């Protein structure tokens, strides 16, 4: 991937990211992490606008919410008229770690031509109890098991971060 944009939300507030593809051959990956452990609203808005064709994009969002955090992720892939040969995928996955937290996921597509590949996927849920059971049955405490699962979940994005400084900064602000 030629370019990479990283968004990290560790405090309530609003963040907006716009990725404009206006040159043919453009490639960009957006990696977003939401670490929501305080009460309040975390609003992340991502717009990927393919103004020209033969452009390649990937958007990956991983978010966890607890302690009464309210997470809202709005992601839009736009492919303008005539922008043939676009390939883009938007993926958002959110984990709700306690029963005080909430999530809104809005993955959107606006496609005005046909020579494209565009898709999105979103999931919202809690930690898989079978995974917790597997780990605890091997002697790991419930709390530790949860931490391992959340780390593994977030690492799906963290491991892709190319800028080491950013990656290590993420390591420090983990939940």
């Amino acid at each position, binding site marked *: 991937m030629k370019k990479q944009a990283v968004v990290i939300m560790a405090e309530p507030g609003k963040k907006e990211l716009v990725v404009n593809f206006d040159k043919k051959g453009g490639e960009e990956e957006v990696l977003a992490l939401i670490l929501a452990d305080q009460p309040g609203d975390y609003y992340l808005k991502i717009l990927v606008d393919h103004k020209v064709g033969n452009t390649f994009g990937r958007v990956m969002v991983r978010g966890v919410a607890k302690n009464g955090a309210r997470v809202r992720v709005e992601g839009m892939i736009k492919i303008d008229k005539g922008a043939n040969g676009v390939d883009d995928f938007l993926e958002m996955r959110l984990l709700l770690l306690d029963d005080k937290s909430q999530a809104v996921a809005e993955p959107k597509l606006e*496609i005005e031509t046909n020579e*494209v590949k565009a*898709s999105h996927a*979103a*999931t919202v849920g*809690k930690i898989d109890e079978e995974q917790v059971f597997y780990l605890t049955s091997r002697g790991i405490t419930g709390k530790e098991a949860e931490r391992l699962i959340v780390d593994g979940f977030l690492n799906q994005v963290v491991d892709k971060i190319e800028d080491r400084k950013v990656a290590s900064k993420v390591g420090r602000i983990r939940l």
Partner: protein
Amino acid sequence: MRLDQDTVKTLSETYQLGHRDEIKYAYRSERGLTEKLVADLSARKNEPLWMREYRLKAFAVYNKMPMPNFGGDLSPIKWSEIFYYLKPTEKAGKTWEDVPDAIRKTFEKIGVPQAEREMLGGAKVQYDSEVIYGSLRKNLAAKGVVFLGMDEGLAQYPELVKQYFGTIVPVGDNKLAALNSAVWSGGSFIYVPKGVEVGLPLQAYFRINAENAGQFERTLIIADEGSKVHYVEGCSAPAYSSGSLHAAVVEIIVKKGARVQYTTVQNWYRNVYNLVTKRAWVEEEGEMRWIDGNLGSRLTMKYPCCVLAGRRARGETLSIAMAGSGQHQDAGAKMIHLAAETTSQIISKSISKNGGRATYRGMVKINKGAKGARSKVVCDALILDSRSRSDTYPTNIILENDVTLEHEATVSKVGEEQLFYLMSRGLPEHEAEAMIVNGFLEPVMKQIPLEYAVEMNRLVELEMEGSVG
């Protein structure tokens, strides 16, 4: 709101139900909507006082509410030119002989009497504003099943109607629902008693005949505990250059353990604005299934909804939309999970071609306390050419953590390799493309009762014919 004459001519060649009947209406209101018209409509229908007041209240709400700020372009609708009430005949017929010749011939062409003989438990036929024919098999009537026009329902079962009317879709739900509440006419009233299973589908057919007609049918279905019913609706309209408006409200109550399926084959002519509010209230272990095929109309805005109010209630929507030249299908589904262990599924398949626009707009909301709720949404879109457009606008609101929500969507074109494969085996391009489109729709089509799948496939093929080459 006008299509040019050439477009009308071309379109009506592929649209087989585009003829109009020259009939003398028993009553036709002035164009436009006034409070006097609403009151007059109620008086002509000899309605109880509460309904008259309900309509007048709804009219006031309608005047105050804003137009929806999402979906398609409503600005071409000339509200003041619409006929809000068109009464074709004095009385609804009990046999087809009672129906005036010109109208009967139209329904014969559509195939309603034949379907009724062969595969239906009952039929209702609405022509502009009024139900002009109705039937119900004797064995169903004997079991206490009620299948009437909404106006007849109000006259014969006033208490039942008063108890439920407007409880699922309140007057102020949206502007078009308020409009319907003010000027509703026709539609179906169905009551299925406890434990009764209606084996054959009950069908309603809606026909708009007049130019600039407004059709505002109102349907109320009550499926009592443990009962089962399948309701089917179809619709068509003549090929006029100026538009008509169809704004229906459908309310369904699915009681404990009951199962209701509602199938729509929407084939309005491409001048009809189809703005419909459909909602079901589903109680414990009840099951509601919407099958929504949108092939016709100029603009459709329709998002059938299930409110899953009881433990283990289930909602399902299967949606097919096809948007051709000049068409915008803004369709989708809503699932509101209020109770524990409720489940829902939405599958949407849309096709846009020849400059058409297909939009999926949906919402899944899982409320606090709906522990163990699960929802899955799949939206696939096919764009057949570079002039057409596809949008996906889903909203997922999750207020409870013990849930599973999955959503996925893809947009693609017909694969060149698939086309090449079929064409290299001697299929002409349009047949190859139609075959691929059929394959794309198949996962939904196979869920639909055979007779309607055949009808839907036929309509898809007709649409495809004019599209390639």
